[in-house]
């Protein structure tokens, strides 16, 4: 059976699952998309290296989406997570999607989950962040 594929190319599944960023070798700016050059106008670098992003972080902002485009299951928690200095967009998972269970400043860690298999039997894997229980 083929190896599982990540939902996006910045999710690495080998070993301990983690995210990688394209880091500008000039100024250290981090990006998750394919780059043409650095958006930091002070830099304008064109060389990037892949760097691992911390797998734990703190919720800087969240929303509990109750209405989304057709086909998207709701409710879900969308969040901005500060992973030790690198901001990451992701859903909060393995937590009840209500304001009693989700809070600003909450400590979370990266977690993965299956998205199902395609016609060739290959599994896709998504990621989110789950609370670190004390």
């Amino acid at each position, binding site marked *: 059976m083929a190896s599982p594929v990540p939902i996006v190319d910045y999710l690495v599944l080998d070993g301990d699952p983690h995210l990688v960023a394209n880091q500008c070798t000039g100024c250290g700016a981090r*990006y998750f998309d394919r780059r043409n050059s650095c958006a930091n106008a002070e830099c304008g670098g064109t060389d990037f290296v892949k760097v691992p992003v911390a797998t734990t972080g703190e919720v800087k902002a969240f929303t509990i989406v109750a209405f*989304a485009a*057709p086909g998207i299951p709701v409710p879900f928690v*969308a969040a*901005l997570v500060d992973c030790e200095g690198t*901001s990451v967009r992701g859903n909060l998972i393995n937590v009840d999607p209500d304001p009693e269970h989700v809070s600003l400043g909450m400590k979370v860690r990266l977690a993965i989950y299956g998205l*199902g298999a395609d*016609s060739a039997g290959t599994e*896709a894997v998504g990621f989110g962040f789950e609370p670190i229980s004390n």
Partner: protein
Amino acid sequence: MPNADAVWILGIHMTKFGKHPDKDVVDLAAEATLGALADAGVKMKDMGVLAAGNLLGGGLGIGQQLQKQVGQTGIPVYNVANACATGATALRTAVMAVKAGECDFGLAVGVEKLAGAGLLAGKDRKADADTWTPQGRYGAVASVDGRIGTETMPGVFAQIGMEYGHRYGGATFELFARIAEKNHAHSTLNPLAAYQKRFTVDEIMSDVMIAYPNTRSMCSANCDGAAAAVVVSGSKLRTLSLEQQRRAIKISASVLTTDPWEEACQVLPNVNTLTRNAATTAYEQAGVGPEDLDLVELHDCFATAELVHYDNLMLCKEGGAVDFFESGATWRDGTTPVNVSGGLESKGHPIAATGIANIWEVCHHLRGEAGDRQIPDAKVGLAHVIGLGSACGVHILEKAAV
């Protein structure tokens, strides 16, 4: 005598915001244009430039379509698009043409048909592909909206408000609901608002949840509408009638910015820095400060957005937006009335019209023509819009000294 170096608003008009099932975008744009020309006391043949915006109409060249109804004079047309800052961009384009000396009169128009548009979200999620195949700049094998965060506008702006709360504290669900309460209360005095109904905080909090903490009545109201403005050079204004000079409104600052690169700005849109940059430049251009403002129309696309812009426009001290709102400052009888029109939450948000409609509101107070909702003795006002992507427009307007 009008300042010859400044650019002035000579005439301005907005249609009723709401549902206009019998009118198309050209009808609404024409109504706003003819209204603005009549208000200015000039004709289409006097215009030297036309800047027009319509974001979601689908047709090409709203400016040319409009000309075919109100006057094809052969002047240059700039069809502009800048998300929710489209109207301000159209106005800024006309101002730049006049300021550059290319013409004496310019016309700016923004129009949108949005009634019944529903949620402004990303694309509908289609069934996943037959085989997982990486596509696009993130090498995504499946739709990411709803799997890696949200692309809905209420959700994005909810996070923007919550991020402010995380940094400074005090930004509760109830606080955001009370901001919406204010704007809905203000709209009861605005006959052109899409909605003119006051809600209690309880009603707002128990309304349909869209993206916590934004309930339906904390979101901008989709509606139809148009607004248009005629601008004139100061030197030309001096040759016009005393009545035209008396009602003309000075554009003391006209600024458009985009977001400078910062950590996280490509992860969650940063609507703060570009607004702060625009405001800083605008205050400098106008030679006024936030304390001089008699009223502010700011981009409350969601209740969570209004809070952060108190801070970004420097209406309060940094980090002090919650206390500022709690003080009552932004109610119409407060020290810095904000969104006395009812704002986008209640007046409505026909996207491309918004950046001229907020200027219309400020102009009416400065002219002393705002009727029941007149802010007494208003002399200076500020209008702000932001479009995600991002673009920010800030205009500072002053009453004529004539």
